[in-house]
């Protein structure tokens, strides 16, 4: 039980730094890297958070698809590719069409549970069409692992992270730091198991 006190102190300091300083925001920006919003063969919007049973997209999923639609409207690519769970893809497709993206320009990747599965689905969908250069839409913290997964299957990736500065409220900052820790753990797991 001797190590509990230092552990408690570390936890307290980490909490204070995470909630009351821009630590999480800085990490968020750092993980996003530099966005490269250039013409590509396709805009790929990765899944995140899915949709509720009534078809309402989760916050992050919604932010991603809106960013992807914005890129499409700037004519950066001829295809808007929607990925994620089956419900998420359906809800995103409905939203994209409602916001003016032609149905013919929307491609749906097969349902996937993990980024690795998404990469495999996207490879099967896009590479036979000659779409190798992709604008990758994901949250800033997800960009490193997602980018590595896409490059592993043969894509040339242009990162297009959603807003990178992150929240300013203490509770939201704590949530962001938790997500960053999880993402870094995922990245480590992918590397330990021999894939990006």
């Amino acid at each position, binding site marked *: 039980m001797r190590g509990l*006190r230092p552990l408690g102190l570390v936890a307290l300091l980490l909490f204070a730094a995470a909630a*009351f300083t821009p630590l999480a925001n800085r990490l968020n920006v750092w993980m996003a890297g530099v966005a490269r919003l250039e013409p590509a063969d396709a805009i790929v919007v990765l899944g995140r958070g899915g949709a509720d049973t009534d078809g309402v997209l989760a916050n992050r999923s919604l932010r991603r698809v809106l960013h992807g639609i914005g890129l499409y409207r700037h004519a950066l690519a001829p295809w808007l590719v929607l990925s994620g769970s089956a419900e998420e893809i359906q809800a995103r497709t409905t939203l994209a069409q409602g916001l003016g993206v032609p149905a013919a320009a929307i491609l749906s990747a097969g349902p996937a*549970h993990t980024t690795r599965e998404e990469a495999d689905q996207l490879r099967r969908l896009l590479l036979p069409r000659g779409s190798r250069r992709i604008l990758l839409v994901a949250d800033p913290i997800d960009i490193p692992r997602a980018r590595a997964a896409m490059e592993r299957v043969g894509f040339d990736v242009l990162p297009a992270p959603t807003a990178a500065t992150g929240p300013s409220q203490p509770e939201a900052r704590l949530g962001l730091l938790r997500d960053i820790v999880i993402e870094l753990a995922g990245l480590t797991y992918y590397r330990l198991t021999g894939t990006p």
Partner: protein
Amino acid sequence: MRSLTLVIIVCLTSLAAYLAGTRFAGLRRTHVREAAIEALDYLGLAVAFLLCNLAVGIALILGLRTLTGRFVSVYLVNDAALAILSLLQAFIFHRWRGRSS
């Protein structure tokens, strides 16, 4: 500014509790430091419980994936409720330890 507001609120209520404790409840000023150190022990215990809960949760999920071949998301353990339950575990364990010693 919002962050600072929260800190100010907590400082004010802490000061009020300190004054009320020392003037009306007969608490000793010299014990504040010991109480803070004990809180660190308690917090450390909560972190230890949280890490154990996460480890067990992830192991169970990975085991289920392996045994059943079905996908179970690791995000299942990504829930603030787990942190609160860990605090509760630590509180009970801390009290139990205190009563037993």
